Protein backbone atom coordinates (compact mmCIF):
# COMPACT_ATOMS: atom_id res chain seq x y z
CA UNK A 1 0.00 0.00 0.00
CA UNK A 2 2.65 2.47 1.09
CA UNK A 3 5.01 1.55 -1.74
CA UNK A 4 2.23 1.96 -4.21
CA UNK A 5 1.74 5.56 -3.02
CA UNK A 6 5.45 6.29 -3.32
CA UNK A 7 5.29 5.07 -6.92
CA UNK A 8 2.23 7.21 -7.57
CA UNK A 9 3.89 10.33 -6.13
CA UNK A 10 7.12 9.81 -8.06
CA UNK A 11 5.42 9.11 -11.36
CA UNK A 12 3.00 12.02 -10.94
CA UNK A 13 5.97 14.29 -10.26
CA UNK A 14 7.59 13.09 -13.45
CA UNK A 15 4.29 13.66 -15.28
CA UNK A 16 3.99 17.16 -13.83
CA UNK A 17 7.50 18.17 -14.89
CA UNK A 18 7.11 16.54 -18.27
CA UNK A 19 3.81 18.32 -18.93
CA UNK A 20 5.31 21.61 -17.85
CA UNK A 21 8.08 21.19 -20.38
CA UNK A 22 5.54 20.56 -23.12
CA UNK A 23 3.51 23.68 -22.32
CA UNK A 24 6.01 26.26 -23.64
CA UNK A 25 8.51 26.70 -26.45
CA UNK A 26 11.53 27.01 -24.18
CA UNK A 27 10.35 24.26 -21.84
CA UNK A 28 12.90 23.41 -19.19
CA UNK A 29 14.92 26.58 -19.84
CA UNK A 30 12.22 28.49 -17.97
CA UNK A 31 13.24 26.75 -14.76
CA UNK A 32 16.40 28.84 -14.97
CA UNK A 33 15.27 31.93 -16.88
CA UNK A 34 12.30 32.74 -14.68
CA UNK A 35 14.19 32.86 -11.37
CA UNK A 36 17.09 34.63 -13.08
CA UNK A 37 14.74 37.38 -14.30
CA UNK A 38 13.28 37.60 -10.84
CA UNK A 39 16.73 38.00 -9.29
CA UNK A 40 17.73 40.60 -11.85
CA UNK A 41 14.63 42.65 -11.01
CA UNK A 42 15.40 42.75 -7.29
CA UNK A 43 19.04 43.49 -7.98
CA UNK A 44 18.08 46.38 -10.23
CA UNK A 45 15.66 47.90 -7.71
CA UNK A 46 17.62 47.42 -4.50
CA UNK A 47 21.25 47.65 -5.63
CA UNK A 48 21.16 49.88 -8.70
CA UNK A 49 18.30 52.27 -7.92
CA UNK A 50 18.14 52.31 -4.12
CA UNK A 51 21.88 51.61 -3.70
CA UNK A 52 20.95 49.73 -0.54
CA UNK A 53 23.20 46.72 -0.93
CA UNK A 54 26.68 46.42 0.50
CA UNK A 55 29.74 44.80 -1.09
CA UNK A 56 28.29 41.32 -0.56
CA UNK A 57 24.88 42.18 -1.88
CA UNK A 58 24.84 39.94 -4.96
CA UNK A 59 25.53 36.64 -3.16
CA UNK A 60 23.34 37.81 -0.26
CA UNK A 61 20.42 38.39 -2.63
CA UNK A 62 20.95 35.29 -4.79
CA UNK A 63 21.06 32.93 -1.82
CA UNK A 64 18.06 34.58 -0.16
CA UNK A 65 15.94 34.46 -3.31
CA UNK A 66 16.90 30.89 -4.19
CA UNK A 67 15.90 29.56 -0.78
CA UNK A 68 12.79 31.76 -0.69
CA UNK A 69 11.54 30.82 -4.17
CA UNK A 70 11.65 27.15 -3.27
CA UNK A 71 9.42 27.78 -0.25
CA UNK A 72 7.12 30.19 -2.04
CA UNK A 73 6.40 28.17 -5.16
CA UNK A 74 5.91 24.96 -3.19
CA UNK A 75 3.43 26.63 -0.87
CA UNK A 76 1.43 28.26 -3.62
CA UNK A 77 1.44 25.21 -5.94
CA UNK A 78 0.95 22.73 -3.10
CA UNK A 79 -1.66 24.94 -1.46
CA UNK A 80 -3.90 24.90 -4.53
CA UNK A 81 -3.28 21.26 -5.40
CA UNK A 82 -6.22 19.53 -3.69
CA UNK A 83 -8.61 22.29 -4.71
CA UNK A 84 -7.52 21.92 -8.35
CA UNK A 85 -7.88 18.15 -8.25
CA UNK A 86 -11.40 18.11 -6.78
CA UNK A 87 -12.89 16.43 -9.88
CA UNK A 88 -10.41 13.58 -9.40
CA UNK A 89 -11.03 13.51 -5.64
CA UNK A 90 -14.71 12.83 -6.36
CA UNK A 91 -13.85 9.83 -8.53
CA UNK A 92 -11.22 7.83 -6.72
CA UNK A 93 -10.23 7.00 -3.19
CA UNK A 94 -6.69 8.18 -2.50
CA UNK A 95 -4.82 9.68 0.47
CA UNK A 96 -4.97 13.32 -0.65
CA UNK A 97 -1.53 14.10 0.78
CA UNK A 98 -0.40 12.78 -2.61
CA UNK A 99 -1.39 15.98 -4.41
CA UNK A 100 0.59 18.58 -2.40
CA UNK A 101 3.50 16.13 -2.15
CA UNK A 102 3.74 15.95 -5.94
CA UNK A 103 3.84 19.74 -6.23
CA UNK A 104 6.47 20.05 -3.49
CA UNK A 105 8.63 17.40 -5.14
CA UNK A 106 8.35 19.01 -8.56
CA UNK A 107 9.36 22.37 -7.10
CA UNK A 108 12.20 20.71 -5.23
CA UNK A 109 13.59 19.26 -8.46
CA UNK A 110 13.53 22.75 -9.98
CA UNK A 111 15.10 24.19 -6.83
CA UNK A 112 17.98 21.71 -7.02
CA UNK A 113 18.73 22.80 -10.60
CA UNK A 114 18.83 26.44 -9.52
CA UNK A 115 20.92 25.58 -6.47
CA UNK A 116 23.49 23.92 -8.73
CA UNK A 117 23.65 27.05 -10.84
CA UNK A 118 23.83 29.25 -7.73
CA UNK A 119 26.87 27.34 -6.47
CA UNK A 120 28.68 27.85 -9.76
CA UNK A 121 27.90 31.57 -9.68
CA UNK A 122 29.09 31.85 -6.06
CA UNK A 123 32.37 30.07 -6.85
CA UNK A 124 32.99 32.38 -9.76
CA UNK A 125 32.27 35.39 -7.52
CA UNK A 126 34.98 34.25 -5.10
CA UNK A 127 33.02 32.26 -2.52
CA UNK A 128 34.66 28.84 -2.88
CA UNK A 129 33.33 25.55 -1.51
CA UNK A 130 34.19 24.98 2.15
CA UNK A 131 33.86 22.37 4.88
CA UNK A 132 30.59 23.80 6.22
CA UNK A 133 28.88 22.71 2.97
CA UNK A 134 28.22 19.49 4.90
CA UNK A 135 25.71 21.43 6.99
CA UNK A 136 23.80 22.36 3.85
CA UNK A 137 22.11 18.97 3.89
CA UNK A 138 20.40 19.35 7.31
CA UNK A 139 19.51 22.97 6.56
CA UNK A 140 17.84 22.05 3.28
CA UNK A 141 16.13 19.08 4.89
CA UNK A 142 14.62 21.30 7.58
CA UNK A 143 13.50 23.78 4.93
CA UNK A 144 11.88 20.92 3.00
CA UNK A 145 9.93 19.82 6.08
CA UNK A 146 8.83 23.37 6.87
CA UNK A 147 7.81 23.91 3.25
CA UNK A 148 5.85 20.67 3.16
CA UNK A 149 4.16 21.55 6.43
CA UNK A 150 3.02 24.96 5.19
CA UNK A 151 1.85 23.44 1.88
CA UNK A 152 -0.16 20.71 3.61
CA UNK A 153 -1.93 23.19 5.86
CA UNK A 154 -2.82 25.42 2.90
CA UNK A 155 -3.84 22.44 0.77
CA UNK A 156 -6.17 21.25 3.53
CA UNK A 157 -7.94 24.58 3.97
CA UNK A 158 -8.14 26.07 0.45
CA UNK A 159 -10.83 23.64 -0.87
CA UNK A 160 -13.16 24.63 1.97
CA UNK A 161 -12.38 28.36 1.73
CA UNK A 162 -11.29 28.98 -1.87
CA UNK A 163 -11.36 32.72 -1.12
CA UNK A 164 -7.99 32.24 0.57
CA UNK A 165 -6.42 32.16 -2.89
CA UNK A 166 -6.76 35.93 -3.02
CA UNK A 167 -4.96 36.29 0.28
CA UNK A 168 -2.13 33.78 -0.06
CA UNK A 169 -0.08 35.71 -2.62
CA UNK A 170 -0.24 38.87 -0.51
CA UNK A 171 0.70 37.05 2.66
CA UNK A 172 3.65 35.42 0.89
CA UNK A 173 4.75 38.82 -0.39
CA UNK A 174 4.72 40.31 3.11
CA UNK A 175 6.42 37.24 4.54
CA UNK A 176 9.19 37.64 2.00
CA UNK A 177 9.83 41.23 3.08
CA UNK A 178 9.82 40.18 6.74
CA UNK A 179 12.21 37.31 6.10
CA UNK A 180 15.23 39.34 5.09
CA UNK A 181 15.28 37.91 1.59
CA UNK A 182 16.09 41.08 -0.36
CA UNK A 183 17.47 43.30 2.39
CA UNK A 184 19.28 42.61 5.62
CA UNK A 185 17.39 42.57 8.90
CA UNK A 186 20.44 44.10 10.63
CA UNK A 187 18.74 47.48 10.52
CA UNK A 188 15.77 46.22 12.53
CA UNK A 189 15.84 47.53 16.16
CA UNK A 190 16.90 44.94 18.75
CA UNK A 191 13.49 44.80 20.45
CA UNK A 192 11.71 43.97 17.22
CA UNK A 193 14.40 41.64 15.99
CA UNK A 194 13.37 38.96 18.52
CA UNK A 195 9.99 38.76 16.87
CA UNK A 196 11.49 38.53 13.39
CA UNK A 197 13.59 35.58 14.45
CA UNK A 198 10.49 33.58 15.34
CA UNK A 199 10.03 33.25 11.59
CA UNK A 200 11.61 29.92 10.53
CA UNK A 201 12.50 31.32 7.11
CA UNK A 202 14.78 33.93 8.69
CA UNK A 203 16.68 31.18 10.48
CA UNK A 204 17.00 29.02 7.37
CA UNK A 205 18.16 31.80 5.07
CA UNK A 206 20.65 33.01 7.68
CA UNK A 207 22.06 29.51 7.96
CA UNK A 208 22.30 29.22 4.17
CA UNK A 209 24.13 32.53 3.83
CA UNK A 210 26.47 31.64 6.70
CA UNK A 211 27.48 28.41 5.00
CA UNK A 212 27.78 29.63 1.43
CA UNK A 213 29.31 33.08 2.05
CA UNK A 214 31.20 32.93 5.34
CA UNK A 215 32.00 29.23 5.89
CA UNK A 216 30.04 29.51 9.15
CA UNK A 217 28.38 26.54 10.85
CA UNK A 218 24.65 27.04 11.45
CA UNK A 219 23.22 27.78 14.88
CA UNK A 220 22.32 24.18 15.64
CA UNK A 221 20.00 24.98 18.54
CA UNK A 222 17.97 27.36 16.40
CA UNK A 223 17.92 24.90 13.51
CA UNK A 224 16.76 22.12 15.83
CA UNK A 225 13.96 24.34 17.12
CA UNK A 226 12.81 25.08 13.57
CA UNK A 227 12.96 21.36 12.77
CA UNK A 228 10.72 20.51 15.72
CA UNK A 229 8.19 23.22 14.89
CA UNK A 230 8.18 22.08 11.25
CA UNK A 231 7.62 18.43 12.13
CA UNK A 232 4.72 19.33 14.43
CA UNK A 233 3.17 21.55 11.77
CA UNK A 234 3.66 18.81 9.16
CA UNK A 235 1.83 16.29 11.34
CA UNK A 236 -0.96 18.81 11.89
CA UNK A 237 -1.27 19.52 8.15
CA UNK A 238 -1.40 15.84 7.29
CA UNK A 239 -4.00 15.20 9.98
CA UNK A 240 -6.08 18.13 8.71
CA UNK A 241 -6.08 16.71 5.19
CA UNK A 242 -7.14 13.28 6.42
CA UNK A 243 -9.85 14.68 8.66
CA UNK A 244 -11.25 17.08 6.06
CA UNK A 245 -11.21 14.63 3.12
CA UNK A 246 -14.83 13.47 3.68
CA UNK A 247 -15.92 17.10 3.38
CA UNK A 248 -14.15 17.83 0.08
CA UNK A 249 -16.26 15.32 -1.84
CA UNK A 250 -19.42 16.94 -0.56
CA UNK A 251 -18.54 20.43 -1.77
CA UNK A 252 -20.59 21.85 -4.65
CA UNK A 253 -19.05 20.85 -7.99
Amino acid sequence: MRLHLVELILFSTYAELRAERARSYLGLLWWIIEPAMNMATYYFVFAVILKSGGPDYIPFLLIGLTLWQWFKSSVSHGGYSIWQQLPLVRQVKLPLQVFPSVQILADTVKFLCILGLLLVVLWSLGYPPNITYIALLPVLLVELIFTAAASYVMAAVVPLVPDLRFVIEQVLQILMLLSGVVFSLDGVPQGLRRWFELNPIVELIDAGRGILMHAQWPNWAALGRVALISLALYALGSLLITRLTPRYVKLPA
Partner: protein
Amino acid sequence: MSGPIISMENVGVAFNAQLRVGSPRFWALEDVSLELHRGERLGVVGRNGSGKSTLLRTIAGIITPDRGRLMRAPVSCQLLSLALGFVRHLSGRDNAILSGLMLGLRRREIIRRLPAILDFSELGDFFDQPISSYSTGMLMRLGFSVAMQVEPDVLLIDEVLAVGDSEFQQKSGAALRERIHSGATIVFVSHGDSQVQQVCNRALWIEHGRSVMQGPVDAVLAAYHAAGHAGPADAGR
Protein backbone atom coordinates in the same frame (compact mmCIF):
# COMPACT_ATOMS: atom_id res chain seq x y z
CA MET B 1 -22.82 -19.21 4.17
CA SER B 2 -20.77 -16.07 4.78
CA GLY B 3 -22.33 -12.73 5.56
CA PRO B 4 -22.63 -9.80 3.18
CA ILE B 5 -19.39 -8.15 2.07
CA ILE B 6 -21.12 -4.78 2.04
CA SER B 7 -24.16 -3.77 3.98
CA MET B 8 -25.90 -0.43 4.42
CA GLU B 9 -28.52 0.39 7.00
CA ASN B 10 -30.55 3.57 6.62
CA VAL B 11 -27.63 5.41 5.06
CA GLY B 12 -27.95 9.13 4.29
CA VAL B 13 -25.51 11.42 2.47
CA ALA B 14 -25.75 15.21 2.45
CA PHE B 15 -23.99 17.65 0.11
CA ASN B 16 -23.34 21.35 0.47
CA ALA B 17 -25.56 23.04 -2.06
CA GLN B 18 -23.29 26.05 -2.58
CA LEU B 19 -20.29 27.83 -1.09
CA ARG B 20 -22.15 30.13 1.28
CA VAL B 21 -21.97 30.41 5.01
CA GLY B 22 -25.05 28.70 6.41
CA SER B 23 -26.29 27.40 3.07
CA PRO B 24 -28.64 24.44 3.57
CA ARG B 25 -27.44 20.92 2.97
CA PHE B 26 -29.01 18.76 0.36
CA TRP B 27 -29.65 15.08 1.07
CA ALA B 28 -28.71 13.14 -2.07
CA LEU B 29 -29.31 9.89 -0.20
CA GLU B 30 -32.00 9.94 2.47
CA ASP B 31 -32.41 6.39 3.63
CA VAL B 32 -30.85 3.52 1.73
CA SER B 33 -30.44 -0.03 2.97
CA LEU B 34 -28.84 -2.82 0.98
CA GLU B 35 -26.82 -5.98 1.26
CA LEU B 36 -24.27 -7.24 -1.20
CA HIS B 37 -22.92 -10.78 -1.09
CA ARG B 38 -19.84 -12.13 -2.80
CA GLY B 39 -20.46 -13.05 -6.42
CA GLU B 40 -23.70 -11.11 -6.60
CA ARG B 41 -24.54 -8.80 -9.49
CA LEU B 42 -26.74 -6.09 -8.08
CA GLY B 43 -28.56 -3.76 -10.47
CA VAL B 44 -29.64 -0.34 -9.17
CA VAL B 45 -32.59 1.23 -10.95
CA GLY B 46 -34.15 4.62 -10.41
CA ARG B 47 -34.78 7.87 -12.20
CA ASN B 48 -32.16 10.53 -12.89
CA GLY B 49 -31.42 12.33 -9.66
CA SER B 50 -32.62 9.50 -7.46
CA GLY B 51 -29.13 9.16 -5.95
CA LYS B 52 -27.78 6.22 -7.94
CA SER B 53 -24.35 7.69 -8.61
CA THR B 54 -24.01 8.96 -5.05
CA LEU B 55 -24.84 5.45 -3.86
CA LEU B 56 -22.08 3.97 -6.02
CA ARG B 57 -19.50 6.45 -4.74
CA THR B 58 -20.58 5.70 -1.17
CA ILE B 59 -20.09 1.98 -1.75
CA ALA B 60 -16.68 2.77 -3.26
CA GLY B 61 -15.71 4.53 -0.03
CA ILE B 62 -15.20 7.89 -1.72
CA ILE B 63 -18.15 9.41 0.12
CA THR B 64 -18.65 8.88 3.85
CA PRO B 65 -22.27 8.57 5.03
CA ASP B 66 -23.60 11.36 7.23
CA ARG B 67 -26.00 9.03 8.98
CA GLY B 68 -26.84 5.34 9.09
CA ARG B 69 -24.40 2.44 9.12
CA LEU B 70 -22.12 1.23 6.37
CA MET B 71 -20.17 -1.98 6.83
CA ARG B 72 -17.60 -3.23 4.39
CA ALA B 73 -15.58 -6.42 4.65
CA PRO B 74 -11.89 -5.92 3.77
CA VAL B 75 -12.48 -5.95 0.01
CA SER B 76 -11.40 -3.54 -2.71
CA CYS B 77 -14.23 -1.63 -4.37
CA GLN B 78 -13.49 0.33 -7.50
CA LEU B 79 -15.57 2.49 -9.79
CA LEU B 80 -15.04 1.73 -13.46
CA SER B 81 -13.54 5.14 -14.33
CA LEU B 82 -12.38 5.98 -17.82
CA ALA B 83 -9.43 8.31 -18.39
CA LEU B 84 -8.91 8.80 -14.66
CA GLY B 85 -6.21 11.39 -14.02
CA PHE B 86 -5.17 11.70 -17.66
CA VAL B 87 -2.74 14.54 -18.40
CA ARG B 88 -3.01 16.16 -21.83
CA HIS B 89 0.66 16.60 -22.64
CA LEU B 90 1.72 13.08 -21.77
CA SER B 91 1.90 10.12 -24.13
CA GLY B 92 -0.70 7.38 -24.10
CA ARG B 93 1.87 5.08 -22.52
CA ASP B 94 2.66 7.47 -19.65
CA ASN B 95 -1.03 8.17 -19.10
CA ALA B 96 -1.72 4.46 -18.91
CA ILE B 97 0.89 4.12 -16.16
CA LEU B 98 -0.36 7.22 -14.31
CA SER B 99 -3.98 6.17 -14.49
CA GLY B 100 -3.14 2.60 -13.45
CA LEU B 101 -1.27 3.90 -10.39
CA MET B 102 -4.26 6.02 -9.43
CA LEU B 103 -6.51 3.00 -9.78
CA GLY B 104 -4.32 1.21 -7.26
CA LEU B 105 -2.04 -0.94 -9.43
CA ARG B 106 1.67 -1.30 -8.72
CA ARG B 107 3.95 0.16 -11.34
CA ARG B 108 5.46 -3.16 -12.40
CA GLU B 109 1.97 -4.64 -12.82
CA ILE B 110 1.00 -1.86 -15.22
CA ILE B 111 4.24 -2.12 -17.14
CA ARG B 112 3.62 -5.84 -17.54
CA ARG B 113 0.14 -5.07 -18.89
CA LEU B 114 1.20 -2.29 -21.28
CA PRO B 115 1.36 -4.64 -24.30
CA ALA B 116 -2.19 -5.80 -23.56
CA ILE B 117 -3.35 -2.17 -23.22
CA LEU B 118 -1.67 -1.21 -26.48
CA ASP B 119 -3.16 -4.21 -28.21
CA PHE B 120 -6.69 -3.78 -26.89
CA SER B 121 -6.79 -0.01 -27.51
CA GLU B 122 -5.62 -0.45 -31.14
CA LEU B 123 -3.66 2.80 -30.84
CA GLY B 124 -0.57 1.59 -32.70
CA ASP B 125 2.07 4.30 -33.05
CA PHE B 126 -0.21 6.82 -31.40
CA PHE B 127 0.47 5.08 -28.07
CA ASP B 128 3.69 7.08 -27.73
CA GLN B 129 2.17 10.37 -28.89
CA PRO B 130 0.74 12.95 -26.45
CA ILE B 131 -2.94 12.30 -25.88
CA SER B 132 -3.68 15.92 -26.82
CA SER B 133 -3.38 14.66 -30.41
CA TYR B 134 -6.01 11.95 -29.88
CA SER B 135 -9.58 11.97 -31.12
CA THR B 136 -12.37 11.45 -28.59
CA GLY B 137 -12.75 7.87 -29.76
CA MET B 138 -9.05 7.15 -29.27
CA LEU B 139 -9.15 8.60 -25.76
CA MET B 140 -12.11 6.40 -24.92
CA ARG B 141 -10.29 3.36 -26.24
CA LEU B 142 -7.21 4.10 -24.15
CA GLY B 143 -9.31 4.91 -21.07
CA PHE B 144 -11.31 1.73 -21.35
CA SER B 145 -8.27 -0.46 -21.97
CA VAL B 146 -6.57 0.91 -18.84
CA ALA B 147 -9.71 0.67 -16.69
CA MET B 148 -10.13 -2.98 -17.61
CA GLN B 149 -6.71 -3.82 -16.16
CA VAL B 150 -7.94 -3.23 -12.63
CA GLU B 151 -9.53 -6.24 -11.00
CA PRO B 152 -11.21 -5.13 -7.78
CA ASP B 153 -13.20 -7.51 -5.55
CA VAL B 154 -16.26 -5.38 -6.20
CA LEU B 155 -16.59 -3.60 -9.53
CA LEU B 156 -18.92 -0.60 -9.57
CA ILE B 157 -20.29 0.40 -12.96
CA ASP B 158 -22.13 3.64 -13.61
CA GLU B 159 -24.11 3.27 -16.85
CA VAL B 160 -21.09 2.72 -19.07
CA LEU B 161 -21.10 -0.75 -20.58
CA ALA B 162 -19.42 0.01 -23.87
CA VAL B 163 -17.54 2.95 -25.38
CA GLY B 164 -16.14 4.23 -28.62
CA ASP B 165 -17.27 3.83 -32.20
CA SER B 166 -19.60 0.97 -33.11
CA GLU B 167 -16.81 -1.51 -33.76
CA PHE B 168 -15.04 -0.79 -30.49
CA GLN B 169 -18.39 -0.76 -28.68
CA GLN B 170 -18.86 -4.40 -29.55
CA LYS B 171 -15.37 -5.26 -28.44
CA SER B 172 -15.47 -3.29 -25.18
CA GLY B 173 -18.98 -4.53 -24.42
CA ALA B 174 -17.86 -8.12 -24.92
CA ALA B 175 -14.79 -7.63 -22.70
CA LEU B 176 -16.87 -6.12 -19.92
CA ARG B 177 -19.55 -8.83 -20.16
CA GLU B 178 -16.83 -11.43 -19.89
CA ARG B 179 -15.51 -9.74 -16.76
CA ILE B 180 -19.02 -9.48 -15.30
CA HIS B 181 -19.86 -13.11 -15.84
CA SER B 182 -16.53 -14.45 -14.61
CA GLY B 183 -17.85 -14.57 -11.05
CA ALA B 184 -17.01 -10.99 -10.12
CA THR B 185 -19.14 -9.04 -7.64
CA ILE B 186 -20.81 -6.18 -9.44
CA VAL B 187 -22.96 -3.18 -8.64
CA PHE B 188 -24.42 -1.82 -11.83
CA VAL B 189 -26.35 1.43 -12.09
CA SER B 190 -28.63 2.00 -15.04
CA HIS B 191 -31.94 3.32 -16.15
CA GLY B 192 -32.04 0.82 -18.99
CA ASP B 193 -34.06 -2.22 -18.01
CA SER B 194 -32.77 -4.60 -20.62
CA GLN B 195 -29.19 -4.05 -19.45
CA VAL B 196 -30.10 -4.74 -15.83
CA GLN B 197 -31.92 -7.88 -16.94
CA GLN B 198 -28.93 -9.06 -18.95
CA VAL B 199 -26.30 -8.29 -16.36
CA CYS B 200 -27.76 -8.64 -12.89
CA ASN B 201 -29.11 -11.38 -10.70
CA ARG B 202 -30.64 -9.07 -8.10
CA ALA B 203 -32.00 -5.54 -8.22
CA LEU B 204 -32.49 -2.54 -5.98
CA TRP B 205 -34.90 0.29 -6.75
CA ILE B 206 -34.20 3.68 -5.25
CA GLU B 207 -36.40 6.74 -5.42
CA HIS B 208 -35.60 10.24 -4.06
CA GLY B 209 -32.62 8.81 -2.20
CA ARG B 210 -34.61 6.06 -0.49
CA SER B 211 -34.43 2.36 -1.16
CA VAL B 212 -37.92 1.23 -2.13
CA MET B 213 -37.44 -2.43 -2.88
CA GLN B 214 -34.76 -5.03 -3.41
CA GLY B 215 -35.04 -8.61 -4.61
CA PRO B 216 -35.19 -10.65 -7.83
CA VAL B 217 -34.65 -8.57 -10.97
CA ASP B 218 -38.02 -9.31 -12.59
CA ALA B 219 -40.02 -8.56 -9.45
CA VAL B 220 -38.23 -5.27 -8.77
CA LEU B 221 -38.52 -4.11 -12.39
CA ALA B 222 -42.22 -5.03 -12.45
CA ALA B 223 -42.88 -3.02 -9.31
CA TYR B 224 -40.78 -0.14 -10.65
CA HIS B 225 -42.90 0.02 -13.83
CA ALA B 226 -46.14 -0.45 -11.95
CA ALA B 227 -45.24 2.76 -10.12
CA GLY B 228 -45.42 4.55 -13.47
CA HIS B 229 -41.82 4.57 -14.69
CA ALA B 230 -40.62 4.02 -18.25
CA GLY B 231 -41.72 0.67 -19.67
CA PRO B 232 -39.64 -2.27 -20.82
CA ALA B 233 -39.42 -0.73 -24.29
CA ASP B 234 -36.68 1.68 -23.16
CA ALA B 235 -33.48 2.02 -25.09
CA GLY B 236 -31.15 -0.84 -24.32
CA ARG B 237 -27.84 -0.04 -25.92
